């Protein structure tokens, strides 16, 4: 299967009379986009804003981030099973407005977190301080039930991203990345001496605001599933996770899954990338044991020599991560785990909720309790009152001069457990 991702570099966004890209400038017809979003009658109103890298803008609370993309030469556009009917993805040519992002904001519950600072200290800790962001803030119809509210916001963001990219369908891409891979049997025949690596991606699957979707199916409903890496790179997996800001996998990060990208880069050279197993992190113990058992079984069936396992969330999913690790290691399959830690503000606490001696190779994505001081912003996009909720009050996090003290766990993507960001912890 061969997927080409064509990058059209975006160097600025402005509102204008026509949605188009010219010389790196993305112009957006605000009214047209707003009308499109309001077609969903759950949505009463929508506010659109722009946030550029370096501007003293704070975006809060962020629900999801999506990369604008369009399928070249296809009548069917959008995310299969979500914003369009089920269709095949992972092959052909997809154009990307590279450097741009749609950011949906607005709280469905009051203590949703998720800051993106486009400037200062905060910018270092989120990857989305470097993208040109179109910020979408919807107002739901009065009395809209929370599940519907969440769905409305999710779809609005995905639709907006497809709308923006549409104008780039027939544009010349400045850079084309090729993701091509034979099937599993062919790869093993072709690279008999390369170690076989499987990527297990754990997805939070526990209920409202803690969901993931694969081809539109809520990940709560699935059994561990093997997919082709191109499918995730081309929109098959999206995020419904809005509560854990620092380590949730945004849709943008699914589209650009860094573990997939980094394994692909070495495929056929140093390793044989077998594929991706999506594993739901369920609530019940029975469900967890089932997920872990089946995941390990898939790895064994495929003959994996090594498995990289990434987590989403913190707390009960730590158990799943370590059970999978233990099952694999006991069968002689080598694991590397990617997870974040909650070691307290002083860094002294035990990092995970659980431990197992078999976890000898772990990449730490950072301590979610690490304190940072954010500089005062000139513009706040979103809910100003949400600022006070950040990290839930152990002392006044908002200083008189407008600076904010908060933990990393409030910043989008700060401790990304798919290793999207370059943060870690060191032992001192």
């Amino acid at each position: 299967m061969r997927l080409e991702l064509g990058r059209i570099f975006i160097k600025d966004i402005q509102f204008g009379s026509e949605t188009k890209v010219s010389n790196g400038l993305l112009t957006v017809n605000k009214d047209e986009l707003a009308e499109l979003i309001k077609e969903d009658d759950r949505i009463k109103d929508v506010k659109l804003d722009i946030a550029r890298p370096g501007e003293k803008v704070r975006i809060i609370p962020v629900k999801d981030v999506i990369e604008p993309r369009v399928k070249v030469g296809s009548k069917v556009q959008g995310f299969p099973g979500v914003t369009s009917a089920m269709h095949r993805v992972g092959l052909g040519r997809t154009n990307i407005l590279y450097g741009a992002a749609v950011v949906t904001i607005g709280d469905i519950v009051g203590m949703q977190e998720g800051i993106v600072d486009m400037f200062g200290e905060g910018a270092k800790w989120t990857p989305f301080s470097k993208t040109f962001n179109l910020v979408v803030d919807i107002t739901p119809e009065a009395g809209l039930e929370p599940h519907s509210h969440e769905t409305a916001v999710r779809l609005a963001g995905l639709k907006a991203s497809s709308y923006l990219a549409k104008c780039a369908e027939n544009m010349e891409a400045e850079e084309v990345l090729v993701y091509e891979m034979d099937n599993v049997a062919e790869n093993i025949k072709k690279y008999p001496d390369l170690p076989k690596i499987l990527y297990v991606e754990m997805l939070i699957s526990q209920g409202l605001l803690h969901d993931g979707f694969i081809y539109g199916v809520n990940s709560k409903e699935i059994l561990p599933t093997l997919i082709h890496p191109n499918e995730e790179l081309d929109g098959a997996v999206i995020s419904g996770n809005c509560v854990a800001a620092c380590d949730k996998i945004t849709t943008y990060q699914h589209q650009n899954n860094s573990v997939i990208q980094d394994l692909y880069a070495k495929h056929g050279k140093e390793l044989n990338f077998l594929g991706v197993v999506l594993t739901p992190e369920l609530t019940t113990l029975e469900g967890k044991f089932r997920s872990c058992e089946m995941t390990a079984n898939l790895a064994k069936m495929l003959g994996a020599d090594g498995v990289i396992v990434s987590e989403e969330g913190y707390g009960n999913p730590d158990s799943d991560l370590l059970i999978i690790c233990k099952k694999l290691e006991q069968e002689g399959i080598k694991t590397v785990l990617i997870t974040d830690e909650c070691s307290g503000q002083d860094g002294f606490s035990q990092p995970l909720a659980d431990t197992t001696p078999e976890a000898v190779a772990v990449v730490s994505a950072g301590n979610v309790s690490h304190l940072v001081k954010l500089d005062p912003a000139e513009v706040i996009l979103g809910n100003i009152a949400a600022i006070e909720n950040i990290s839930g009050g152990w002392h006044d996090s908002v200083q008189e001069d407008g600076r904010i003290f908060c933990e990393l766990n409030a910043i989008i993507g700060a401790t990304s457990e798919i290793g999207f960001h370059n943060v870690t912890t060191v032992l001192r």
Partner: protein
Amino acid sequence: MIIFKMFKRGGGLMKYRILTNNPSVAAKYENVLYIEGTVDDVLVKTRNLIQRGESLVTHPLPASIRMMYTPYRSIVIGQASGSSDFLQLEIVEESITKYRRIIEYRNVDIKNNRDYENLDLWLLESALYEMNTNI
């Protein structure tokens, strides 16, 4: 009198009930052991019941840092066959230890009481759905 409900488990039916300090949950369901107290109280009661042989159906901890600060927590417990399961005991003890360490320097998020109350209920509903849709 605590009423139990049944759900299918391992080819048979298992009784379960909900341990919670969440008034919305207590109002909605019958098979509830309501605890007037904190999340810590709910976790400790869960541990005590597991020690006495009941079984853990849902994991005691939530799945994200933000949810750790919740003032409400609902946990589903099932009636077990006989002796306590060591793995379950370990899970619940480690959950208490971890929870206390995380909460140590924080205040409970009272401002967002109502939202946490709702979230806990919705997550519980998902869990019950998960329990009841599998044969």
